[in-house]
């Protein structure tokens, strides 16, 4: 038995691999196919770990930020990058509207440290740098 399948159309952007790569195999055989009754089955070392759902794509903060950075990189290739003064000038619009707690607030704090402003100015932490 062989699986070799020759591409018939020939090119045109279609990738026609003759066998599945490991990623494809994992998506398929750990997630699809018949499952036999638990009472018939025997436990083997390692199997339980393997059958943990390997899929991703629950839209997350990380995903959002990654996309945004990808857009940023797109734009950078088209336009000139802004310098530090612009960066500092625009800071307020970035830090104040946090709608997510945790990481975002932490980022906001860090930002205030960097810029050395905000109401926490009266309580200097020592690690902040004066922005202007």
């Amino acid at each position: 038995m062989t699986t070799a399948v020759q591409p018939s159309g020939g090119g045109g952007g279609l990738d026609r691999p003759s066998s599945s790569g490991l990623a494809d195999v994992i998506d398929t055989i750990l997630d699809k196919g018949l499952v036999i009754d638990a009472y018939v089955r025997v436990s083997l070392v390692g199997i339980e770990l393997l059958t943990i759902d390997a899929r991703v794509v629950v839209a997350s903060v990380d995903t959002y930020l990654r996309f945004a950075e990808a857009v940023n990189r797109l734009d950078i290739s088209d336009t000139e990058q802004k310098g530090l003064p612009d960066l500092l000038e625009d800071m307020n619009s970035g830090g104040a509207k946090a709608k997510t707690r945790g990481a975002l607030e932490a980022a906001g704090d860090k930002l205030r440290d960097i810029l050395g402003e905000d109401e926490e100015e009266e309580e200097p932490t020592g690690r902040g740098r004066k922005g202007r």
Partner: protein
Amino acid sequence: MTTETETQTDGETETGTAVYVYGIVPSDVELDPEIRGVGDPPASVSTVASGPIAALVSEIPQDAPLGRPEDLSAHAGLLDAAAAELPVLPLRFGAVVSDVDAVKEELLDANQDDFTSALDQLEGKAEYLVRARYDERVILREIIGENDRMGQLADAIRGKPEEATRNERMALGELITQAIEAKRAADTQRVADALADLDVELAARQPTHDEEAVHLAVLAEVERQDELEDVVGELAKEWEGRVEVRLLGPLAAYDFVVTRTPE
């Protein structure tokens, strides 16, 4: 759970053997004796038959850790190779039964009617998988060009560090994610429509990547594989540069076998 079964090694070690099951096939299958399956070294593959159906199995040590990439590839490779030639009901990776009798009685005999009719339905058919992924730069430009709000947000973050534009980035990323979901749905439908004339069954899979455009399982006549390739190839041509399209198969019909829920 770990039932001691095969007794060939009795007296020497505590290690028994177990039976790894790959899938179910018609019992008139002829196996190439050279075929190897899971395990290290790869185990030989044999059949356990019961009436019209048989299980493809390997005897393996019960304490063997399975799950190396080689094991996964062996499982898939064996079933996919079989599916190109005969109907196969693929089992999910990791099906291990205590012994050959259990395979025969509790797997084959207990499900004989279901398995037989399922195999009949798969006669002449195999699964193909259409997987397509967006080119990130191209799809982002497309999306942002279609939506003013995203264009504004893109301007707002341009060249600025992440810390300074976190909110804009979050908003932009969320809009992009939604836009890609919409594109994915539309492009998946596009593939489905294109395949409609081929008399196929379709099963959409969950995306496994943020930029996945299409992840669609197709149950098609193996004889019509050329047509399938032509149809998908046409789309790939149309989408060239925007979407990278792959067509896998023939595969065993993983997405078209259903485990009956026990009553």
